[in-house]
């Protein structure tokens, strides 16, 4: 129990852990997917594996927006910035993500006008302050982030700011879960549902997973105790042979979601027929595009887009890791060619990707232990 003393309620953590041991059938192996990259990061950071029985396996899902973005989209965004002489504005998370010809940061060094913004509203502010330049915001994220992009676009339209556009890469979580469940080599028992995505979409969009697939879902907070309580709730359902959607994160997640946020998304976005996910391939109706009413602010309609496609190296087994068929360290490239400093596969790209989280917390720890014991 590595970090147990750091926990706010060590006694409650111990109790939750004991309850998990009591509920888990020793003759059964449980495979539980946490969908959200924030949960993956927290699970590794807190060393939660150390307080779980060995027969509970946590599978790290696709909920890391930086990781699942195909490299071709980064290439396209940077190509537009260069050829059209526009300001490329993006979150800091994007700056070191490799494109075919370098990351946004490296393109900056090559003369492209690349800026970090912390909010889509800041990208719009940049356009207000630079009326003679065009600002293109490279938008990424799940439903947590998409409403902020939508509201920003609505403000641009209402103010008539025309030197601003969005290169939209927003994706939606439910079709990715469906793609994973449809995969023939997938075997999962239950889901820890995303926390902040659910503040927007609520809990109802997960009901089909319980109803049609017979798998329990519990939306969870990010604290160690939240995650352990969510596992307790899932095990209780599995033990009773039930499959329902439950909300552990009630203090933040309303069951019906955020109506204003959903309304803003519906005003600005529509579903794309299909979109490519790094590691998972093309998934139908899994991403958002900007509606024709906002075409003037849609970088893809406003500028010529190369439509670059870059396939991940065959040796990278991101898809298998995403589906839980392989553990990160079982991929042939893990820790050798593919590291957080030089990511080759999708899941090594961001700290929320399962391979990067595993590398940062497990692999480095193991390497340190080996070094120390060899010195001793």
């Amino acid at each position, binding site marked *: 129990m590595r970090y147990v003393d*750091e926990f*706010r309620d060590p006694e409650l953590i111990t109790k939750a852990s004991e309850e998990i041991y009591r509920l888990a059938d020793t003759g059964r192996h449980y495979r539980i997917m946490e969908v*959200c*990259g*924030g949960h993956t*990061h*927290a699970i590794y*950071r*807190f060393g939660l594996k150390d307080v779980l029985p060995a027969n509970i396996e946590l599978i790290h899902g696709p*909920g*890391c*927006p*930086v990781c699942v973005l195909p490299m071709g989209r980064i290439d396209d965004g940077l190509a537009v910035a260069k050829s059209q002489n526009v300001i490329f*504005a993006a*979150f*800091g*998370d994007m*700056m*070191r993500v490799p494109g075919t010809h370098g990351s*946004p*940061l490296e393109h*900056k060094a090559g003369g492209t006008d*690349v*800026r*970090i*913004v*912390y*909010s*889509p*509203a*800041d990208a719009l*502010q*940049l356009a207000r*302050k630079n009326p003679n330049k065009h600002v293109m915001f490279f938008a*990424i*994220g799940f439903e*947590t*982030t998409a*409403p*902020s992009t939508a*509201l920003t676009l609505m*403000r641009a339209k209402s103010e008539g700011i025309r030197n601003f556009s969005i290169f939209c890469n927003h994706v939606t979580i439910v079709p990715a879960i469906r793609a994973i469940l449809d995969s023939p080599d997938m075997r999962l028992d239950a889901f820890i549902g995303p*926390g*902040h995505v659910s*503040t*927007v979409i609520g809990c109802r969009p997960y009901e089909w997973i319980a109803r049609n697939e017979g798998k329990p879902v519990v939306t969870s907070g*990010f*604290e*160690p105790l939240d995650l352990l309580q969510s596992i307790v709730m899932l095990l209780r359902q599995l033990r009773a042979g039930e499959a329902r959607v439950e909300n552990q994160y009630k*203090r*933040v997640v*309303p069951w019906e979601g*955020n*109506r*204003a*946020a959903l309304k*803003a998304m519906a005003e600005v976005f529509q579903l794309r027929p299909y979109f490519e996910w790094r590691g998972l391939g093309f998934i139908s109706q899994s991403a958002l595009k900007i509606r024709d009413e906002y075409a003037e602010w849609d970088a893809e309609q406003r500028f010529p887009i190369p439509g670059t496609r870059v396939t991940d190296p065959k040796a990278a087994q991101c898809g298998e890791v995403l589906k839980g068929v392989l553990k990160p360290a079982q991929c042939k490239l893990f820790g050798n060619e593919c590291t957080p400093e030089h990511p080759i596969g999708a899941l090594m790209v*961001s*700290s*929320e990707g399962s391979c990067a989280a595993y590398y940062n917390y497990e692999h480095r720890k193991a390497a340190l232990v080996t070094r120390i014991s060899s010195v001793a």
Partner: protein
Amino acid sequence: MCLAIPGKIIELVPDQPHLGTVEVTGVRRKVDLGLLVDDMPVPGDWVLIHVGFAMTKISEQDALEQMHLLQMLGETEQAIEEVRGYGLDDSGGIRSVSSGTS
């Protein structure tokens, strides 16, 4: 990406009703309140902020716990850097790239 930062509403911006000034560990910045129009916060309320937009109202207790969580995750510095970077105030800056944030 999933970072949610707790902040206290200090005031609503008089001539821009969709904006509010929030305080996060002593740093004050304007954030967009447009996602909370159905239940607008008032000064003294606590909200969770994501990419410059208040996403949901929370209790003061939950706000303190969220701050503690960021600390445990080693993300406090990143959160404060994000809040400092919000560019809707003249004092805030949209920076040219000098270093990335993860």
